[in-house]
């Protein structure tokens, strides 16, 4: 039986007078990939940052693997991997050095084999000694994904991971997400590409104006149906 690794309940978040999240409830089980969709400003990134523990909600709870984020210490951060809009990397260091640095922060034992494995997984092994500043946008994004999965987190948060990726990199990311999801992780991803959401995710969730307005398994939807729902949500 699968169990929820990400459980968000009744989440509210305000920035000044603007309420960005208005009572969001969400559950992602282990081995499950959920695509969070919504127009710009719908609250997707705020929700991701709250689940990552980078932002505190005004109300509501985030429970990861049965442990409330609000009550957990720094150790719970081991179980979260985040790919953000920004690559969260150091461009003056090489790909290898970036991952070696984060391996130190995560207290990884003998990290060389793991660094090699993730660099090969994102097809950057040949460029491991090159400075990140010499990487293309797609390569930086792939290295950002390598950084997020380096410490083998059960919870993966991918905020528009397909941004800037070409066709082959996008396919590589798709394969990665399927492999990672199949290995009992819970993956929450956001994207503006509706077809990709259907292809990559097991379920889709539509966020509009800080509220979940639709949620369904991806198999029950096709591209036109999802686009229609997306447009309807936009007119709410």
């Amino acid at each position, binding site marked *: 039986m699968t169990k929820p690794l990400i459980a968000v309940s009744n989440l509210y978040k305000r920035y000044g007078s603007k309420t960005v999240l208005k009572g969001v409830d969400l559950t992602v089980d282990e081995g499950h990939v959920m695509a969070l969709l919504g127009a710009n400003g719908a609250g997707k990134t705020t929700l991701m940052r709250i689940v*990552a523990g980078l932002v505190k909600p005004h109300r509501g709870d985030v429970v990861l*693997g049965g442990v409330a984020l609000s009550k957990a210490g*720094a*150790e719970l951060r081991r179980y979260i991997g*985040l790919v953000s809009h920004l690559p969260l990397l*150091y461009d003056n260091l090489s790909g290898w050095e970036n991952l070696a640095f984060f391996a130190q*922060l995560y*207290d990884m034992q003998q990290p060389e084999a793991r660094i090699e494995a993730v660099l090969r997984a994102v097809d950057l092994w040949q460029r491991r000694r090159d400075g990140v500043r010499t990487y293309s946008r797609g390569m930086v994004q792939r290295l950002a994904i390598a950084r997020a999965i380096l410490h083998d987190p059960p919870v993966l948060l991918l905020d528009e991971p397909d941004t800037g990726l070409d066709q082959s990199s996008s396919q590589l990311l798709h394969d990665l997400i399927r492999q990672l999801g199949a*290995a*009992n992780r819970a993956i929450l991803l956001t994207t503006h590409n509706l077809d990709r959401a259907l292809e990559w995710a097991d379920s889709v969730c539509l966020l509009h104006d800080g509220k979940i307005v639709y949620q369904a398994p991806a198999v029950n939807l096709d591209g036109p149906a999802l686009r229609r729902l997306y447009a309807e949500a936009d007119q709410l």
Partner: protein
Amino acid sequence: MDQHCAVYMPKLINCKMTNISLPTDPIAATPTPSPLAMGTVQMRTGGGAAAYLRKVWAIASKDLRAELRAKEIFSTMATFSVLAVIIFGLAFDLRVQRSAMVVPGVLWVVILYTGILGLNRSFGAEVDRGSLSALLLAPVDRSAIYFGKVLANLVFLLAAELITLPAILVIFNTNLFQTWVLVGLLLGTLGYVSVGTLFAALAASARARESLLPILLLPVMLPVFMAGLKLTAITVDGRGMEELQRWVGILAAYDLIFLTIAFLVFDMLWEET
């Protein structure tokens, strides 16, 4: 003793709570696990002071290595400090009969403004490239991030001072390579970067951080500035040890107080609500 735990969330949480070793995750126990299968990574938990210091050093050495490649911070600081000494030399040359009278002031003003340049980049660069989020996501006590940054900033500013002193020797014909001046520089610089790093973190996310940091920092730096100035002046003038020791004591106390305060409050800076 370090715990060696497979990374499987419910088990690792249990491991932390009960402080006993866990069996390896079944996925990791398969003969040839996929590199992306869960439980293939082993991490230490706990580790006490040694683990803490390893992380402090990891953060400091990352900054130092990045700077060795980019040469953004130190070259700017060193160039600015030499130019400032030259400008002070030109400004005072016509009016001051004995350069030793103004040298302590020149030294400490140059240090204050040179330091601002480095401190601004300390967290500013992390915010600009978004890597601060990655640091905050890591299972690291946030005070370790602070001390790592303090260490890197200390190295940058002390290195810039090693260039400022010969510049003062050439322009003002005053040798500041004297034990008590160097002691004052070490303690004063430590106090400066301990407060400066804290304020740099505070100002890092502000839009006008370049102008905000000096406005926040310079008033708090007055005790360090005054103590450093007095210590340097007493040494240059060749006055008594008793006075020297008093100012050294003030600098040491300032360092201790602000390092402790920063250790206690740094975690709260990142509680984004």
